[in-house]
């Protein structure tokens, strides 16, 4: 009887581990590998994150383009290529009536000059609100990325800012070039952040009740985003839950990522 049980156990264990692949220890300790039902494989593309903004700091344009490639989910090392792409040709064009009338070359910058490494900039480039810019990003072995953005207008507050010790409210003027607002209320070390979609066809009422007391030093930053950045930043399905259906996130053609623009205004003494 005992013999039979042992035989049966051996057969069961054999069946259980028959799915193990070339690294039994890995499989036994952690579990087997997935069984793919489709042939689709690694999707090799450029992945861009570029923001055009009209401000300068120490005469340097704050607009930047960051360029990477996508990674293979497993065994990416076989690609033998760094994730950050530093030798691409990136040009931004001013577009009027569909015609490219001016070009700006974004060059790879010395990372020591900026916190964010691996950035392309045209340090003298100053985009202008409501103008359209086109991005063309070329790199050998990859599909060329193309994208367009219209620089949004500065956010405008319609009427007064109403503030007391514990709250602040105001109306942001309706503007068709703005698709998302980021609002920061900063008071020394304290800050409050709100991300608000503009009301459709009307002014957007904003009321903030920060967890700190407002003072004379409180500063209000309001940022406005174009449709590309608004779409990208408001994307919902970006949690890291495994096994979920998550197509690539993109607002560009030929690759993935986002090329967008923003504007802003600072308010004090309210």
């Amino acid at each position: 009887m005992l013999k039979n049980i042992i035989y049966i156990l051996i057969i069961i264990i054999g069946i259980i581990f028959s799915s193990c692949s070339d690294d039994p220890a890995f499989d036994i300790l952690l579990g087997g590998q997935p069984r793919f039902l489709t042939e689709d494989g690694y999707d090799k593309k450029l992945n861009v994150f570029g923001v055009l903004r009209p401000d300068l700091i120490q005469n340097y344009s704050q607009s930047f383009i960051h360029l990477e490639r996508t990674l293979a989910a497993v065994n990416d090392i076989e690609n033998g290529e760094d994730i950050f792409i530093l030798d691409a040709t990136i040009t931004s064009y001013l577009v009027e009536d569909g015609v490219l009338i001016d070009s700006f070359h974004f060059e790879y910058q010395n990372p020591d000059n900026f916190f964010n490494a691996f950035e392309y900039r045209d340090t003298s480039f100053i985009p202008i609100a409501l103008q359209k810019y086109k991005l063309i990003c070329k790199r050998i072995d990859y599909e060329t990325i193309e994208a367009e953005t219209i620089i949004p207008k500065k956010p405008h507050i319609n009427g007064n800012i109403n503030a007391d010790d514990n709250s602040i409210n105001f109306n942001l003027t309706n503007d068709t070039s703005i698709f998302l607002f980021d609002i920061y209320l900063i008071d020394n070390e304290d800050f409050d952040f709100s991300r608000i979609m503009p009301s459709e066809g009307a002014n957007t009422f904003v009321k903030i009740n920060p967890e700190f007391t407002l003072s004379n030093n409180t500063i209000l930053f309001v940022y406005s985003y174009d449709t590309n950045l608004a779409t990208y930043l408001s994307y919902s399905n970006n949690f890291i839950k495994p096994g979920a259906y998550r197509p690539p996130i993109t607002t560009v053609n030929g690759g993935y990522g986002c090329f967008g623009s923003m504007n802003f205004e600072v308010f004090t003494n309210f």
Partner: protein
Amino acid sequence: MKYIINKILITFLLIIFTQNIYNQTNTISGYVTDENTGETIIGATVVLKGTLNGTITDLNGFFTLSKIPEGLNTLNISHLSYITKEIQIDVDQKKSVLDVIKLSPDLKKISEVAIVEIKPDEIGDKQVEISQLEITPKAIKSIPTARNDIFKAIKYLPGIGDGETFSPLYSARGGDPSENLVMLDGVVMYNPYHYVTTSGIFNVQTVKKIDILVGGFGAEYGGRNSSILYITTKDGNLNEIHGEIEPSTTHTKAFIEFPVNEKSSITAAGRYYYDLPGMFFLGGRSWFYDLNLSYTNRINNKNRLTLKLFSSLDRVNQDINTMFSYFSNTFDDIDVYDDMDIDMKNNWGAHAITGILKTIISPKIYLRTQVYGSFHSSDNFSGMKFRFPVEEEGILVQMDYNTSFKAKIKDLSAKSTLNINLTNNNTVKLGIEYNDYYFKNSAIINDIDKGENIRSPNLISTFIEDKIMIGRLIIRPGVRATNYNYYGNWLLEPRFNSSFNVTNNFKINAAWGQFNQHIISMNTQEYEVNQMLDYYYPLKDRKPLQSIQYLIGFEKNISYHSNVSVNFYYKEMPTTYMFDLNEDAVERFSFSDILLKGTGESYGAEILWKGNWKKFSGWLSYGYAKSYRSYNEIMDGKKFLFDYDRTHSFKTIVNYKITENIDYNTSLLVLTGLPRTIERTQQSFYYYDPISNQYGFYFFGISETKNNARLPFHLGLDFGIKKEIRNGFGYDLMNYFNFKESYLNITVSNVFFFRRNVIWYFGLPTMNKYLPVGINFFPSFSVGYTLKF
């Protein structure tokens, strides 16, 4: 359409009117109850002695029997767990509703009753449901990992499957979980689950019967397209006080039933759970309770009034950082408190109140009238933030994700069902229901308010079905008509069930039906692990979710103690919906804009053997199933495997009575892995800080193909032992409290712990493999006592 409704109403009136004519024949009716407890007995057989004229008591313990000759007759009343009784009745026009018939429990039989009950009368009976599954409270208590939980137990039945590991939701025959109707004594319950234990909110101590219809159900049931889970609770002991206390290492629960007077009784049950491991590891206070109260008054032999109250509440507060702090406050340069923040806060509640009046209008007419209010609220937040500057690389690894979903549901309903026994061979059932709904949903995802959606639809439903016996053939045509004010038109759902008794031990069933569903659910489970509820969402100005079902099967008694059934089904879904998880706030701002409309189909076959053999009892099932969906917005309309598709399912439950006092149970599950979207590529996603003009990023997996892979097969083996204690601590405890019985329950779960059941895969670009993640790293062991008084 109005013509059809008028026709139904006219039929209804005609039936009542012509009842006087039918009353000229002799028909008897009444309740069958347990002599000791006064509890109504479901499934008792009532036969006119010396004839084949017989019937079975229904869910209310009620029967009607026609063609009774005038004068003195003998009735034979039997049930598997009771001593067969014969009573003499003198039938005349005035005495057609009998006094309650009381059966005495057969203690010998009860101790022998296995976890499945094969009633000889069930095969070849008048039932025509093709896909009706029954699971007894005793069976639920004997499934080791499902002990005392209905929702875990039903997943051991063919055709019922689970989905996400941490979710209590279930799928029936390739349907979405939101297509399952859960009814507690006729009350529709919304999200009847506890969070921490992913279990149901129904205390098995109060449950009398559990029926599950997984397809092809009759016109009586509607509103959901996949399955009906109908739970009947006890009315309470009419003779003496009884109870049960079950302290254990994980929870404490208690049940009591007692008579108020000679006609009425009360049952009360409660359960409280406090998450001690969670408090230690996750730093929060998480708990839940559920409470059942029931009052039944047997006003007279014609009228019964039942009032029931149900309430459950869950509070969860988990901070994952607490767990990390036991190892270290820092990992390399990462401070778990300053750089990381992972929180889950869940508040769930389900409450219901109902009044049920059961009236025997005449021996041929039985009326059940019910009003209820069913309420649900949930407020679930989860957030994950981290920010790790890697100075030497000049990069910032960052994530700032959060979701907050809130829901409120009110369902106020009034309904009546009329059973009319025209003859022994012809029973008409008809009913009407009015539902007044209130649904409020709101969501904030990644700090963006997705808006609030409040809808208050109402639904009028009416049905009629006629069960007709023609020799060995039974047919039950029926139709359900619904008017949902947010859609406007009356819609018809025709249904047809049939059964042919080839022999007394072998019958063939077939069914066809159309099903509509106006209340659907937002499929938030794919967002992340904490949003695991059904967020119910009423459609507006849209076609209802539809399915057309075709079923055929047979059932055969292979011995006195066992039977086998085989079912085949095909389910066509011309209209199905899902919420677009890949939306952004610019393109799709409000809830109503993010619905995707598609189609689907599922088909399969199931074999179920259940029975008893010597000291063994249990069941064994195999299911083959396929389920697909298609949406234009996903892969350009290409068909993909549905999230709950399991091609092969092998499930078995075995109970072995070692001695008179010891029961040994084991459960085994071998299931094909679920389809999931496993990434082939990883993409950086960027967070942007406009003040500093800095950005941080993290990688997540992307795939253009939905459900492009399957998880490995699922294997689960659990053991349990239940022993009646005759000495030692449990016995002393029983004597101390002066209780009558004491049981020791031991459960060993996850016996195959060395073989991982993978639930997730993480891509590892630096390795040549995916990192599999499972949760069954160790077997678990639990011990508890049950004390009965």
